[in-house]
């Protein structure tokens, strides 16, 4: 009786797959459990990285080297510093440009909050096209990012209420990054008046002269902080690291990654120990046939590896889907970023699979090596 399988190709790979197929439910449970564990960890880590990378790109597009803000604020968005400091900042050698920005979270139509950026006149963020001309925003006018527009179902021409103030959306703002696509833009003086923050801004974005050595950068930071004890200067990288959201998500991601990796190892170890226990006699027969202890153990390790690798691939898919869902949910909370999955992530996933297979196979291999051929055959 012929079978569909090619009869002269029975190798180690076929042997391993056949062994796994003999316990399909167990294999599926192991693979799915580990896939979910790995995928969940990947979602967490991927979410924090995506937010960070998106913010990084945003600041890079603005040529921001340093951020000046109020010291002692765990949430940078609540920073408030004097706008007048810009004159002192301009006098510091090495500074090429300064952008002042006021950021606030305002109530839209007595319903939910939105982020609003207030830029001084002369910036692209307060200019829009009116016919063929580029004009400045007037008092009471707003620009809206495309993401904010779709999330809040607002279009140019709409009149809205922000913290009881009336404003009209005159145009879209073509944001250079995903994050800014989710906010509204108005004149700095309008936002200052609305929030009773006259003469105050949240940040100064500082652009430095290109090619400055590290020593010069430190000198500039020192000069800025010497202007006032309430000032703190951070590089964009430090700022991103301090970002509460990304720090929290990153920290949580690491914890979840560690615990999920441990969980995966325990799952695969338990499943394989169970399998080895059930196959004691079978493995003893192989030993009696002349299979070395190492060869039999290698079989166990390879079976573990196949399960881990399959779980890793599936975990990658789960992680990617999870990441898309997480970022979509964050968008509804006003946190905008784009999914950034790189080759590095795939390498990490592969490394996790190898680690899980190696560590997860340790106990089953130990059991395999300690099978007494004689005893097992008597069972």
């Amino acid at each position, binding site marked *: 009786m012929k079978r569909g399988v090619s*009869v002269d190709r029975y190798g180690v790979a076929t042997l391993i797959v056949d062994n796994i197929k003999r316990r399909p439910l167990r294999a599926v449970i192991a693979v799915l459990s580990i896939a979910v564990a790995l995928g969940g960890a990947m979602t967490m880590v991927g979410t924090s990285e995506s937010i960070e990378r998106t913010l990084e790109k945003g600041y890079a597009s603005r040529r921001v080297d340093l951020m000046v803000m109020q010291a002692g604020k765990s949430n940078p968005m609540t920073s408030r510093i004097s706008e007048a400091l810009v004159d002192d900042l301009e006098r510091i050698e090495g500074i090429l440009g300064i952008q002042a920005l006021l950021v606030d979270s305002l109530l839209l139509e007595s319903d939910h909050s939105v982020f609003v950026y207030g830029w001084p006149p002369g910036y692209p963020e307060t200019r829009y096209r009116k016919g063929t001309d580029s004009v400045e925003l007037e008092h009471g006018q707003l620009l809206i990012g495309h993401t904010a527009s779709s999330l809040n179902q607002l279009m140019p021409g709409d009149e809205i209420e922000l913290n009881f103030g009336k404003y009209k959306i005159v145009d879209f703002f073509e944001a250079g990054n995903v994050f800014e696509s989710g906010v509204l833009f108005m004149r700095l003086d309008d936002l200052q008046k609305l929030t009773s923050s006259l003469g105050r801004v949240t940040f100064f974005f500082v652009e430095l002269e290109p090619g400055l050595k590290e020593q010069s950068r430190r000198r500039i930071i020192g000069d800025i902080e010497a202007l006032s004890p309430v000032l703190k200067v951070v590089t964009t990288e430090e700022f991103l690291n301090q970002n509460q959201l990304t720090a929290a998500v990153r920290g949580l991601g690491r914890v979840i990654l560690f615990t999920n990796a441990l969980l995966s190892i325990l799952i695969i170890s338990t499943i394989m120990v169970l399998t080895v226990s059930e196959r004691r006699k079978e493995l003893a027969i192989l030993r*009696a*046939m002349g299979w070395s202890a190492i060869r039999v153990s290698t079989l166990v390790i390879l079976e573990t590896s196949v399960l881990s690798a399959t779980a890793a691939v599936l975990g990658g898919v789960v992680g990617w889907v999870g990441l898309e869902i997480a970022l979509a949910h964050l968008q509804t909370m006003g946190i905008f970023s784009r999914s950034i999955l790189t080759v590095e992530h795939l390498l990490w996933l592969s490394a996790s699979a190898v680690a899980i297979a190696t560590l997860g196979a340790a106990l089953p291999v130990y059991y395999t090596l300690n099978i007494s051929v004689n005893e097992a055959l008597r069972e």
Partner: protein
Amino acid sequence: MRPLVDLQNVCRTFGGVITALDDVSLSVSEGETIALLGPSGSGKSTLLSLIAGFETASSGTLTVAGKSIHDWHPDEFRLRIVGFLFQQFHLLEHLSAVRNVELSLFPTCRQPRQRFLKSRQLLEDVGLGERLLVQATDLSGGERQRVAFCRSIANQPRLLLADEPTGNLDRASSQRLLSTLSDHMLRHQSTLIVATHDDDVARICSRVIRLQDGKVVDS
């Protein structure tokens, strides 16, 4: 000529209380076919287990193929020196006849095709050419034992040990198996030690060693 198997004053006790083998000394030359006869509990299986390296003697010396059994690497020993045929066959039930034989060739033959061809040949030689792909559970007792026999000689061991090979077979299957064993021994001049209480088995052997209560009573 040095014997292939040489036991000197070998004892095997369990828990210091039960003596399975008591001061057993015997030699087996290359090419001999030895029947170990004796009732149940006489120590036949224990003796075979010791020679196969599945168990360790409590005292005495045991040399196989010129080396003490302790000096042999167990995996090399079971691959090149000794083949074992069990009463219970011990096939992998989820595999077909040819796969069971192929498995024993994994350590010595890297090419899957070669493994298959060799296994097929062995099975054809014992009349199982039409049963290659039949799963072990679907084979008769006699067929299973012939598959087990092919598996045990696939790597051409110098010594074949058989523990009650016809114990679970009907008379016709037993006769067939004995015929197979006999042909193989004649063709390959292999050494065979078979533990049995069946006189028909003893008849195909060149020498009979009787065991009683763990002692050799007649050699």
